[in-house]
C-alpha cells in the first residue's frame, strides 16, 4: 500500500525537507452508526479540509469517539459514506486506509523498543530497510525522542510514551492523523506542554489533516482550526474555533465551550448597522450585543464570558448590569466571583480587583463591551 506523505517541515531542527506531502480531506456523508436499535451517531455530514485540525468535543456518549472510529474503520456505519481524499473508505479495512492514530493509553507495543514501535507501520507496509531507518530517525527527531530509540516503553514516562506514539503514527506519513483523547492520561502540567508541542508540530507540518477527539475544551480551543461540538450523537454546532467561541449558535455550545454566562433577555431592537449589534432588555438595563435575525420582543439569551466582565466601567464597557455578590474565590492569578443577576448566577473571572470588594449580599455593577457580547437563541437545542 502506498501512503502519500504530508507537507511541512519538522519541529525539532531536523532537515525539514524530509517530511513532506499532502494531507487529505475527510468527508462524512450522512454517516450514522447504530448498535442494534440504539443509534449512537445520527446521520453526520461534515468536512475536514486538507491540513485542517478539526476538534470533536462533547460530553461522554455524545458520539465523538464513534465518529473517529468510523473513520479509522473500527466501526461500520449503518448508513452513509466516508471519503478520505478521493477514496471512499467506507468498505476498506483499517489497514488499507492510510491513517495514523494515537490513543489515550499510548498503545505502544511493550515488547518492542522505541525504534521498533516507530518502524512497525513501515515494516507492515513493506517499506525498504533504508527508508525505515530514515523515517524512524526523522519521526523520533520530530517529537524530540531521538535519544530514546533503544529504550522499551516501560522505561519512558507517560509524556515520552505519547510522543513515541505520535512518532509511530507520523512515520507512515498518514493521509489523516486521528487523535483520540491523546492527552487524557497525562497529568495537568505535561498535558499543557503536550498541547503546545502538538500545536507546534502542526505549525511545522501544515499539510497534515488531524481529527482530534477530546472532552477538554482547552485542548480544542488551543489546537483546532474548527470545532464540532457533539451532543447525543449529533453535531450541535460546527465552525471556526474563534467564531464558535465568540458567537455560539446555541445555548449548549455557549455553555460547553468556555462556560459562558447566559442571561435571559428580551430583544428591544434587531441587529443593525455595520457591527450587527442588537439591543436587548434585562430588567431596566438595555444591553447591546452581536445579533442574528432576532426581532423586537423575541425572548433570547445574552451570552457573556466570565473574563469579559469588568468590575469597573469605561468608555468601551458600555453595557452595565447590577448583581448581588454571592461568592468570592481567590485562586492566585484569578479571582472568581459569583453574582446573582435577576435570579441568574453570573460568574466573573477577574485578574485585578478594586482596592475593596463590597460585602457579600451587596449590590455590585458589572461592565462589558458590546463586542464581547452576543445573543444566543434559547429555543435551539443542539
Amino acid at each position, binding site marked *: 500500500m502506498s501512503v502519500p506523505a504530508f507537507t511541512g517541515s519538522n519541529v525539532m531542527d531536523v532537515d525539514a525537507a524530509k517530511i513532506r506531502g499532502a494531507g487529505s480531506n475527510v468527508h462524512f456523508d450522512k454517516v450514522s452508526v447504530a448498535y442494534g436499535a440504539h443509534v449512537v451517531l445520527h446521520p453526520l455530514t461534515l468536512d475536514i479540509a486538507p491540513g485542517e485540525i478539526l476538534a470533536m468535543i462533547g460530553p461522554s456518549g455524545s458520539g465523538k469517539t464513534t465518529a473517529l472510529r468510523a473513520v*479509522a*474503520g473500527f466501526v461500520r456505519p449503518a448508513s452513509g459514506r466516508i471519503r478520505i481524499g478521493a477514496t471512499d473508505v467506507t468498505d476498506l479495512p483499517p*489497514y488499507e486506509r492510510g491513517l495514523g492514530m494515537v490513543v489515550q493509553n499510548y*498503545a505502544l*507495543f511493550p*515488547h518492542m523498543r522505541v525504534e521498533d514501535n516507530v518502524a*512497525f507501520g513501515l515494516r*507492515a507496509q513493506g517499506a525498504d530497510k533504508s527508508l525505515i531507518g530514515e523515517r524512524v530517525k526523522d519521526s523520533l527527531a520530530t517529537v524530540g525522542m531521538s535519544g530514546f530509540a533503544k529504550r522499551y516503553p516501560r522505561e519512558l514516562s507517560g509524556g515520552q510514551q505519547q510522543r513515541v506514539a505520535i512518532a509511530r*503514527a507520523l512515520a*507512515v506519513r498518514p493521509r489523516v492523523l486521528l487523535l483520540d483523547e491523546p492527552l487524557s492520561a497525562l497529568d495537568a502540567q505535561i498535558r499543557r506542554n503536550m498541547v503546545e508541542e502538538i500545536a507546534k508540530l502542526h505549525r511545522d507540518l501544515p499539510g497534515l489533516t488531524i481529527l482530534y477527539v477530546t472532552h477538554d475544551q482547552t485542548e480544542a480551543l488551543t489546537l483546532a482550526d474548527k470545532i464540532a461540538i457533539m451532543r447525543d450523537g449529533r453535531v450541535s454546532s460546527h465552525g471556526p474555533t474563534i467564531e464558535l467561541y465568540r458567537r455560539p449558535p446555541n445555548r449548549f455550545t455557549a455553555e460547553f465551550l468556555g462556560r459562558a454566562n447566559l442571561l435571559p433577555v428580551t430583544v428591544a431592537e434587531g441587529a443593525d448597522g455595520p457591527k450587527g449589534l442588537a439591543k436587548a432588555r434585562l430588567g431596566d438595563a438595555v444591553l447591546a450585543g452581536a445579533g442574528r435575525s432576532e426581532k423586537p420582543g423575541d425572548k433570547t439569551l445574552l451570552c457573556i464570558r466570565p473574563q469579559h466582565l469588568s468590575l469597573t466601567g469605561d468608555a468601551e464597557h458600555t453595557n452595565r448590569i447590577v448583581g448581588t455578590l454571592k461568592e468570592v474565590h481567590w485562586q492566585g492569578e484569578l479571582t472568581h466571583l459569583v453574582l446573582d443577576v435577576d435570579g441568574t448566577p453570573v460568574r466573573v473571572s477577574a485578574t485585578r480587583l478594586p482596592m475593596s470588594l463590597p460585602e457579600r449580599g451587596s449590590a455590585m455593577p458589572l461592565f462589558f463591551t458590546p463586542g464581547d457580547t452576543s445573543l444566543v437563541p434559547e429555543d435551539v437545542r443542539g
Partner: protein
Amino acid sequence: MPGRFWIVPPAALLALLFFYPLALIVQQAFTDDSGMANVAEFARVLHARFFLNALINTITISVAATAGCLVVGLVLGLILAFVPFPGSGVIARLIDTFIALPTFLVTLAFTFLYGSAGMLNAGLMEVFSLQAPPVNFLYSTWGVVLAEVTVYSPFVLRPLLAAFSLVDRGQIEAASVLGARPFRIVRQVILPAAVPALIAGGSLCLLLTVNEFGIVLFIGAKGVITLPLLIYSKAIQESAYQVACIIAVINIALSLGLFGLYRFAAGRLGA
C-alpha cells in the same frame, strides 16, 4: 501451640502419603528381589530395548500431543478472544468442561466414532461395500495423540484466554491502522504477549501427557507402550518390582523436570 509447630501436621501428612512411598520406590529401584543392593540392574534397564522403546513412545506422543494442543488451543483461543460472535462465552465454558471429564471418556467416544466397529467405519463399509474397516488410525500412536490433544487442549486454552484478555485492544487497533494485516498482528502483537501462557499451558500438557495412562491403556494400540504403561506391565503383570521402580524413578525425574518448567512459566505469567 507456638506458630512454628504448625508445620508439623502438614509435614507429617506429606511424609506419610508422599515422601515415604516415594522413598520406598527409590529404595526398591536399587534393591533386587533378595533384598540386596543392586545398581547394575538400573544400568541394564536403562539400556534395555523395551525401556528405550517406551521412552521414545512416551516422548513422541507427549511432544506431538503437546504441539497439537498448542495449535488447537491457540487457534481456538484467537477465535474465542478476538473474533466476536454470539455464544463465544458458552463455547469457551463448554470447552472448559473437558477438564472435568475423565480422560478415558473421550477415548470411549473415539472408539464409538473411529473404532473398527465405530460409526465412521460402519458408514464407509456400508457406502462402499468394503469387507474391512478402512480407518484404523485410532489403534496407533496417532490415535493416542488425537485423543490426548482432544482431552488436554483446554489446558492450553485456559491460560491463553486469560493472557488474551489482558492484551490491550488499543495495540491491536493501532497496529491495524498502521497497515498491519491480521496475521501480522497475531504474530507481532498478540503472540509476544501470550508467550508465557503458551509456555505454561504447553509445559502442563507435556507433564500430563508424559504421565497419561488411561488413554493409552483404553485405546490398547498394539506396540504403543509408554513409560506409565510399562511400569504397570512390569509391576502388575510380570511382578518385576525392581524394574518397575527403576522406570518409575526415571518417569518421576522426567515429570519433576517438566513440573519445574511449568512453575517457572506460570510464575512468569503471574499465575
